[in-house]
C-alpha cells in the first residue's frame, strides 16, 4: 500500500482545507457557546447497544467490531446526537432542565451512496434537552441559522416539516409505505386523499395556508399554530419553506423538524428538530460541514512570510504579533518559493513576492 489509497469514502484534508474545516467548526461552536450551549466531547466508539438504543439508529448503519477487552460488540458513532442524550440522561441527569450542550467531531457511516459518497463526516451541533416547546424550537432554529451565518454561509433556506404528521392523521396504522412515497413525492403512488400534502410543499405562507385547508377536521391545528409561532420568531433574511411530508433524516423527530439549505451546495447542510430521548423532550440541530469546505468556504488568504537565515528571534516574534505567519529558513538551500510564501523579509520589511 505505497500509493496511499484510502478506503472508499475516506479522505485526507491538506492545507488549506484542514484549516478551513477547523475554522468552520470553531465559528459554529463559538456562536452556539455565546447562546449558553456548553461543549462536551463524546468518545469515537462505544458499545453498540448504547449507540443503537437512544434514537433508534439501526445497527446495520454502524461500523461494528468486537471489543477484545470486554468481548462486547463496539461501534463507531454515526451520529453524536444520541451520545449527547446518553450524557444528559446519566452523568448530567441531576442538572436542572433544560440542559444546553454542543459538540463537534467526526462520525462514520457504514455505507455511502452515489449521491453522498463520503463515509466520514464532520458533525457539529447543539442540543437543548428537557424542553420541546415553541420557545425551545425557536431558540434552536435561531442559533442554527446564526451559527451558519457566522461560518460565512450565504443565502440560507430553512425548510420546515412535521415529522409525525402521518402518524397524527392515521394513528395506529402501518404507514411506512405511505411515508416513503410521500417523501419521494411520487405522486402516482400516493393515494388521492394525501396528494394535497405533496402539492402543499413550497414557500411557507402559501404552504401553511394549503395545509390548513387540507386539515378540514382540525387534527393539525395545534401543530400548525406552533409552527406559525416558530416562524414568527425567526430573522426576516432567511427564506422559509414548508414541506409537510419531508422524511429525509427525520427518523426520530416528533412535532417539528427543519433542514437548512444554502447557495453553496446542493443538498442540505444541516438539520434538526424536536425528539424524545430517554423519556425526555429535546430539540437540537446538526450541521455537516464537509460540503461547505468543498465549496471553498472559510479559506483565508495565505499570507506566509519567509524569514531568511539569521533573522533575529525577537524580530520574528514582533512580526507574528503583527499577524504574520512566519516561516523560518532552516538551511542555506531553502527559499521563499519552496516554502510557498507570499512575502519575504528584506531590509527588515515584509516584501511581496512578485
Amino acid at each position, binding site marked *: 500500500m505505497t500509493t496511499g489509497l484510502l478506503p472508499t469514502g475516506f479522505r485526507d484534508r491538506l492545507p488549506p482545507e484542514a484549516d478551513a474545516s477547523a475554522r468552520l467548526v470553531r465559528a459554529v461552536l463559538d456562536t452556539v457557546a455565546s447562546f449558553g450551549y456548553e461543549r462536551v466531547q463524546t468518545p469515537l466508539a462505544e458499545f453498540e447497544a448504547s449507540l443503537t438504543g437512544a434514537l433508534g439508529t439501526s445497527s446495520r448503519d454502524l461500523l461494528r467490531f468486537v471489543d477484545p477487552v470486554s468481548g462486547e460488540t463496539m461501534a463507531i458513532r454515526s451520529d453524536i446526537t444520541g451520545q449527547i442524550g446518553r450524557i444528559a440522561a446519566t452523568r448530567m441527569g441531576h442538572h436542572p432542565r433544560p440542559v444546553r450542550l454542543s459538540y463537534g467531531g467526526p462520525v462514520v457511516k457504514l455505507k455511502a451512496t452515489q*449521491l453522498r459518497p463520503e463515509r466520514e463526516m464532520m458533525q457539529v451541533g447543539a442540543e437543548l434537552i428537557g424542553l420541546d416547546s415553541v420557545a425551545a424550537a425557536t431558540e434552536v432554529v435561531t442559533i442554527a441559522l446564526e451559527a451558519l451565518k457566522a461560518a460565512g454561509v450565504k443565502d440560507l433556506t430553512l*425548510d420546515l416539516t412535521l415529522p409525525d404528521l402521518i402518524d397524527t392523521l392515521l394513528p395506529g396504522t402501518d404507514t411506512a409505505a405511505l411515508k416513503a412515497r410521500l417523501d419521494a413525492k*411520487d*405522486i*402516482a403512488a400516493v393515494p388521492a386523499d394525501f396528494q394535497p400534502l405533496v*402539492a402543499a*410543499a413550497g414557500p411557507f405562507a402559501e404552504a401553511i395556508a394549503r395545509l390548513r385547508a387540507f386539515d378540514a377536521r382540525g387534527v393539525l391545528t395545534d401543530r400548525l399554530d406552533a409552527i406559525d409561532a416558530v416562524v414568527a420568531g425567526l430573522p426576516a433574511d432567511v427564506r422559509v419553506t414548508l414541506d409537510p411530508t419531508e422524511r429525509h433524516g427525520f427518523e426520530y423527530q416528533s412535532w417539528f423538524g427543519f433542514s437548512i*439549505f444554502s*447557495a453553496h451546495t*446542493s443538498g442540505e447542510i444541516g438539520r434538526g428538530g424536536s425528539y424524545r430521548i430517554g423519556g425526555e423532550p429535546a430539540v437540537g440541530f446538526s450541521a455537516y460541514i464537509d460540503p461547505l469546505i468543498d465549496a471553498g468556504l472559510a479559506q483565508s488568504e495565505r499570507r506566509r512570510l519567509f524569514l531568511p537565515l539569521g533573522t533575529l528571534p525577537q524580530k520574528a516574534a514582533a512580526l507574528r504579533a503583527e499577524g504574520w505567519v512566519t516561516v523560518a529558513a532552516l538551511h542555506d538551500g531553502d527559499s521563499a518559493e519552496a516554502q510557498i510564501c507570499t512575502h519575504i523579509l528584506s531590509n527588515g520589511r515584509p516584501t511581496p513576492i512578485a
Partner: protein
Amino acid sequence: MQQPIIFAVPKGRILEEALPMLSRAGIVPEPAFTDGKSRALKFATNRADVSLIRVRAFDVATFVAHGAAQIGIVGSDVIDEFDYSELYAPVDLDIGHCRISVAEPAEMAASDDPRSWSHVRVATKYPNLTRKHFSARGVQAECVKLNGAMEIAPSLGLSSRIVDLVSSGKTLQENGLVEVEVIAEVSARLIVNRAAFKTNAAVGALVEAFRAAVDG
C-alpha cells in the same frame, strides 16, 4: 440570486410526446433542438433562465439527482431503478405509457409456472428493479446487465428470461418471447431535484405549470 434552470429531457421514446407538454408549460426550445442533424447537447429556450439538455433516459435521473440539472422528464421505470433519495416525482405526465415485464421464450412459458420459481437468471437494463421485484416474492434473481437488445439473450443462452419495457408486445413476439409477469405500469414523470425544489422558487413554479398542463 436566481440560478439558471437546467431541464433534462430523454432521447428516444418519450421525447416526442414530451415536447407538446413542455410548450403547454411555457417552454419552447430553440429550432436546433428538433433538428436531427444538430450535434449540440445543450439548447436555449424561449425563457432566458431555462436551458434544455438532451441525454439518455437513465442519465436524466442521475443529472437531476445530483443537482447538475434541476428538473427533468423521465419514465417511472428509470426512477424505480435508481431509487435516488434526492429525486422527487411530483407530477405524473400521463404520457409514454408502457409496462415493465418479465418475458421468456414461448416454448418455455408453455410449461412454466411463475409461482414455483426459486431462482431466475435474467438479462435486463434494470438490475436493481428486477432484484427488488423478485426478492419481494422470495425469488433469487441473478441479473445480467445489458444496455439494449435484451430480446436476443434467451435465444443465445445468455439468460432464460428478460425484464424489459413492453408497449405493444411486437418486439417480444418477433423474438419468440411471451410476457409472463407484469412488474409495474410505467408512465413519464416530471422529476425535480430535492434541494432545487426547496430553494429555487422558479423550480416550484415550473412544477405548478406542469401540473396545470397535465390537468388542462
